[in-house]
């Protein structure tokens, strides 16, 4: 019990650390492709919607995505269009892998060509004033991709 502004309060917590969440391993096959600089979209076998990264249930047609077979995946481009962006003025938090620590990070929402979804990413190798909605960007691959979501975290102007 603590005194705050001469009023009595009682403290407590919500221990989210006591929870588990169960998730299908639907990202495994997707991230495998990233090893080879290939982005595979999960295609809904019912309505054809292409998700990157994949999803377990297609909202549009209410189907369970089948991610076992090759035909459920399509190879999509690593190029896309900026849907929206943001220039962060906040102090950059610890653990942020921005490649130029001197510069304000530019965050973008990108729709990759051939997909029906947006992903968030960081735009590098571009000055603030160049960023705009509709600009064309491509994944800035590392020489040896790790095969995780970090591989498609950075984009550059195309």
């Amino acid at each position, binding site marked *: 019990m603590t005194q705050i502004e001469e009023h009595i309060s009682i403290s407590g917590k919500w221990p989210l650390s006591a929870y588990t969440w169960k998730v299908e391993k639907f990202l495994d096959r997707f991230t495998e492709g990233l090893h080879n600089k290939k982005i595979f979209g999960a295609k809904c076998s019912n309505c054809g919607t292409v998700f990157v990264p*994949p999803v377990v249930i297609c909202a549009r047609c209410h189907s369970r995505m089948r991610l076992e077979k090759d035909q459920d995946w399509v190879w999509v481009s690593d190029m896309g269009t900026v849907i*929206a962006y*943001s220039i962060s*003025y906040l102090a950059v*938090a*610890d653990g*942020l892998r921005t490649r130029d620590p001197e510069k304000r990070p530019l*965050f973008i929402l990108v729709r990759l060509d051939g997909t029906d979804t947006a992903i968030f990413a960081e735009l590098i190798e571009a000055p603030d004033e160049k960023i705009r909605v509709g600009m064309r960007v491509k994944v800035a691959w590392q020489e040896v991709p790790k095969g995780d979501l970090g*591989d498609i*975290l950075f984009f550059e102007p195309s």
Partner: protein
Amino acid sequence: MRNLAIVGIGLTKHVSKRRDVNIPELVYEAVKAALDDAGIHPKDLDALVTGNMPAFEGINCPELWGGGYWGGYRKPLIRITTGGSTGASVAQGAFYLVASGLYDIVLAVAFEKQSDGNTTIGLNTTALADVANMTAYGLSGPEIEASGAIGLFVYQATSYMAKSGCTIEHIDRAAAMLRNNAAKNPYAHLQQAGVTAADIAKTPMISYPLRFGHTCPTSDGACAMVLATEEKARKLSRKPVWVNGWAACSEEPAIVGLFGAGSINVDPAEQRSCKLAATKAYAMAGIKEPWKEIDLAEPYVPFAYQLFIYFERLLLCDEGNAPRLFDKGVMELDGNLPTCPSGAVVSSNAIGAAAMIRIAECALQIKGEAGQRQVTKDVHNAVAHGLGGQANLNVVTVLSDMPSRR
């Protein structure tokens, strides 16, 4: 369906901290005011509908503890929670109960006491599971946070600006108008009379294009409304405010899908669910040309630029045209379609209550009881809006001084 009306409204003065009361006591203030406004006692109530954002106070189903303070003893009571739109969803729950034919007088209660919790953690708890999965696949928490979750409304803003020609100066001026409206609203949290667009422009940039002056505070506050059937409403109130149309519509959360999937809500500024909900609500109210027939709008505006986007998504003008109409003074208190006379969510944000207050404000304006912030024109029809989740649930209510069904 039977007609229904708002016959009582109660609001608390919103402030950043109400440490002198606990949650049931704070909410009681709004409930008592609403019941007094309707001239009724809880024994006259047939049912209650209540809700708030659960994680923000750390209390699971607080109506179990507080329901008695709000007149819920031995009454039917249901709890509805839908995120930022909770207040509007609670109100619509009450509309459904009255319109069903089973309950004649229903109390709707929504609240948030954010000083009891931590809003940043509260917001984070919406996405912990998704973040945990993305972390398992190589992203770090700060990376997701910086580029994803916090960016939601910034992304919405830049996308909207690109489509509409809205500039950051427009947003500064919108913020200034809303802050000045709030200063005329005794229930509003931020009281910054006389603040100018130039003052807003001096506030620090958080993420382009959002400045600190464009954003909402965290507030403690509550709102309650009494809903009644036409027969009861005519007995209880000299000027009932008729709830003629309402609807809600869900789509997928924007920016990040389930467990880090891509979101098919590709453009967070599109807000098709808002247009669909508005279309349904207007149709139900018999409104064919909202841009002509609606006299006042209260969109859900926690960030100043949303004044424009939701004005459009509520079908009050062509897409992309709101900033130009704003330039002409249309949205001012003395304008042709005054918008957010309350000062908006950007000036008071007790999250669970915020979307209900939009409805309450429309009702007060229709009754002509909005005091200093009463708009110049006569208000016959008004539209109120709530937004929940990751910009994925839109809730629209149409109110009027006349019932639409006879």
